[in-house]
């Protein structure tokens, strides 16, 4: 049996942690910037703005993940920094990932 080598390509993963109240705004931003797909999940944790334990509306966090081309991820990150960093609980970072089916991203 011979294993076929996986053919992967590099894309950029943008991960954002922020307060849940921003979800509708972020979704709108991503649609506007032409992001093809994203995943949003509930999250909890602690940071400079205190414990966010998701016990009720105002203490809820989300994690947003977007896999896309480097340029688009950088544009989105720059927008987040300009628009939200000053006043909202938000952490965002880029990382390189390898994906199958590159045409999806």
């Amino acid at each position, binding site marked *: 049996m011979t294993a076929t080598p996986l053919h992967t390509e590099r894309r950029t993963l943008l991960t954002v942690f922020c*307060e849940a*109240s*921003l979800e509708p*705004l972020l979704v709108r931003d991503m649609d506007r910037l032409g992001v093809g797909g994203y995943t949003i999940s509930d999250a909890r944790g602690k940071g400079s703005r*205190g414990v966010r*334990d*998701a*016990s*009720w*509306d*105002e*203490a*809820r966090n989300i994690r947003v993940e977007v896999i896309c081309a480097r340029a688009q991820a950088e544009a989105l990150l720059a927008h987040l920094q300009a628009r*939200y960093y*000053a*006043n*909202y609980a938000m952490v965002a970072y880029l990382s390189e990932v390898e994906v199958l089916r590159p045409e999806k991203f």
Partner: protein
Amino acid sequence: MDPVILFFLFGLAAGLLRSELKLPGALYDSLTIFLLLAIGLKGGQGLATQPLAPLVPQILAVIVLGCVQTLLAFAVLRWLFGFDRPNAAATAAHYGSVSVATFAVAAAWFAARAIPVEPQMAVILAVMEVPAILVGIVLARGVDKDTDWKALGHEAFLGKGVTLLLGGMAIGWAAGPKGLEPVSALYFDLFKGILALFLLEMGLIVSRQVGELRRRGLSLIAFGIGMPVLSAGLGLGTGWLLGLSVGGMAMLATLAASASYIAVPAAMRIAVPQANPAVSLAGALGVTFPFNIIAGIPLYHWMASRLAGATP
């Protein structure tokens, strides 16, 4: 003391002692949905038995009341307590709006004492959520071209609270008391038990405001108690002008005194991001909510009885 208040105190104590007790976030959501629907249904079935035309002046009056309260709270916070403009505006919006949990406790308190309250108070609860949000936003940033009124209007009028209250009311009104009988065991008979569970969770949430209260010192506590009493006076006056019963006046005073922690924080977070949400919530939840449900409601009822007794 009412058992529902004891549940609240139990939650508060468990939170302050850093107990492991934690209710799932989804339960808090579910209980909120239940309370909003139950209050809407109750109001709606009451409205089904009376003409709706007298409601119009009452709705207009409470819109004015909500705006006046917000402006007053803003002035007090800005000039007396030295808040900056965004924080004064956001906190004022919390105090100009209303708290569903406080309304629910008051409804249970009046029901336990067989004090009649007009059914349209549920309509007034829904109406009073909104004006303070809009006034607060204008106070924080003025009226400029950038204001996205469509999004704000959507947030203010179609938020979870107003939608569920109005939906429940429409169902209650369309079905009437007879039609609601099959669901009344859940929504009316179990109301107090579910309210008690909700207040247990509220106690836990309130206990988390203590840190912020410590940082802010006495001024936030003074505002958190002074403002509701002042607002209750305005509410009583409005109720008296509208010719409400003693129960109705006391309920309107309670609504005026209560401070929002559902609709307003979410709207202010988006519309006035410079405001620190911890400050408004520590005031509304940490001070005003416990004050209203423990001391405020009996006080406002006493004030309403005196006002009704003084005027033949």
